């Protein structure tokens, strides 16, 4: 039996992925259905349209599989806790979402996801399904702009999936869907910090260590290294540092630009703290003349009971803004 020092409310720690998946299907209230081993797919799919398939490891709920829905992903392939979905799950999801126009894979930049989705794509191509892939790499602290290929996919996946999902309700070709999804990725940057680790259900062990008096600046959502450790500081100081890192990146942000600003809790950081950070961040954005078209304050990209926050900025051109304003509905993010 594993340790459960985090007092997680679970059954068999080795069955968490399967069980949460079964719960998730129920949470969709009949709007989405289970397919195969561990895929979830919308019931109403627009006929003759290119499909948007998202996915990744479990344990970060509500992402990714909670982002399936109207104006969001058409389906999701779900892995085990912190593990990319295996290729056969990717394939079954691909088959279920495909409506003859091909399938766009949209997921985070992790070796496991890339390899498993790639194998899934090869299997799908063998069955005559065209697949394109757009990889989310919004984490500015994981590599310099010159090495985007090394950047992780983190909080920015929420606006990115939302925009790609909106596009999937409108466009007619896979190329067009891929173009817009790639534009959403190119327009999105995230900086995350962590203050406390989460723990893996099956081992009960925290996934990393962090001293009580430091914050991991730029850490990834599993505790991967960022730009360094800084002393525990105030929300005002932290917000300024996070925005400084965002502004220092290669996404041009000028006066008059419109953005989506997403303040995300990595798990146990309370919304009180998110709101205090938002209060600190907005005047800094305002001072640069950046217009916040939509604010999101929520806990959507998580890592179990990990504490920490991320700021994501998605810059909206007129095409993306129009897509942003479409309604969407999912377990993880809903917009009127």
């Amino acid at each position: 039996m594993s340790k459960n020092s985090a007092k997680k409310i679970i059954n068999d720690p080795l069955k968490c992925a399967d069980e949460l998946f079964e719960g998730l299907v129920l949470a969709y209230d009949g709007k989405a259905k289970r397919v195969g081993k561990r895929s979830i797919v919308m019931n109403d799919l627009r006929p003759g349209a290119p499909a948007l398939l998202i996915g990744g490891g479990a344990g970060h709920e509500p992402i990714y599989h909670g982002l399936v829905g109207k104006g969001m992903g058409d389906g999701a392939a779900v892995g085990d806790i912190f593990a990319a979905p295996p290729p056969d799950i990717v394939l079954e999801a691909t088959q279920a979402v495909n409506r003859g126009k091909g399938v766009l894979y949209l997921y985070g930049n992790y070796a496991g996801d890339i390899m498993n989705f790639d194998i899934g794509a090869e299997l799908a191509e063998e069955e005559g399904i065209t697949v394109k892939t757009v990889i989310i790499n919004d984490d500015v602290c994981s590599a310099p702009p010159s090495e985007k290929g090394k950047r992780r996919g983190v909080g920015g996946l929420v606006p990115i999936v939302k925009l790609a999902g909106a596009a999937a309700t409108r466009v007619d070709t896979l190329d067009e869907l891929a173009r817009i999804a790639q534009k959403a990725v190119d327009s999105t940057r995230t900086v995350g910090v962590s203050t406390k680790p989460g723990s893996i259900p099956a081992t009960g062990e925290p996934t990393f260590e962090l001293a009580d008096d430091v914050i991991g600046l730029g850490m990834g959502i599993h505790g991967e290294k960022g730009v360094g450790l800084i002393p525990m500081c105030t929300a005002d100081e932290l917000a300024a540092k996070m925005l400084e890192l965002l502004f220092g990146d290669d996404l041009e942000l000028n006066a008059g630009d419109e953005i989506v600003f997403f303040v995300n809790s990595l798990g146990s950081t309370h919304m009180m703290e998110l709101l205090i950070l938002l209060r600190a961040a907005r005047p800094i954005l305002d001072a640069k003349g950046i217009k916040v078209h939509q604010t999101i304050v929520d806990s959507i990209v998580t890592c179990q009971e990990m504490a920490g926050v991320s700021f994501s900025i998605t810059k909206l051109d007129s095409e993306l803004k129009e897509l942003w304003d479409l309604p969407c509905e999912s377990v993880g993010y809903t917009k009127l």
Partner: protein
Amino acid sequence: MELNPNQVRLMMLQVADAIIVAEPKLSQADRDLGDGDHGLGMKRGMEAVKAQLEPMEPASPEQVLVATGTAMMTSMGGASGAIFGTVYRAGGKALAGRATLDSEGLALFLQAALEGVMKRGGAKPGDKTMIDALAPAAEKAKEVTGQPVADALAAAADAAEAGKEASKDMIAQFGRAKTLGEACLGFPDAGALSVTIMLQTMAAFAKAA
């Protein structure tokens, strides 16, 4: 000395048990550099392998090894599901037409596994992945073809062990440790540890066989 299909099957069942026992060690290695689940994924894969192999009456080493790879590939997910699934599937296919596993077959197996993994994941030796255990093992196996398979496996396992140790001094370029930079020095790669345990278990089985 060579291993017949059923011996290969029994050997893989021992490998599975060895990895399952090593789960905490493998997860800890991944905790140092990654997200701490490597042992869990490998254990999940090995349980699927056992379910596949236990009732099997295999006709060839290829059949055992490809089934091992398929079971891992479809049950694990994560980086290691794709990587180790490829090891056994690509490696196993290289044994097509061979009735037994001898030291020549071992060399073919490891070489095809290595090429499959490098093609799949784009990593090369020195990038601090399981390749740093697999590549020297494959190299050594080529040198010792002609020896009994037990000796060849022992030599390959030693080479993997040395490669795993050498991975401590490498800076990761792939997988979750790739952004750690120098902070990953001193820790061996988790996947390299899995490769080492697998080859050591195979060598021990072959020696006793």
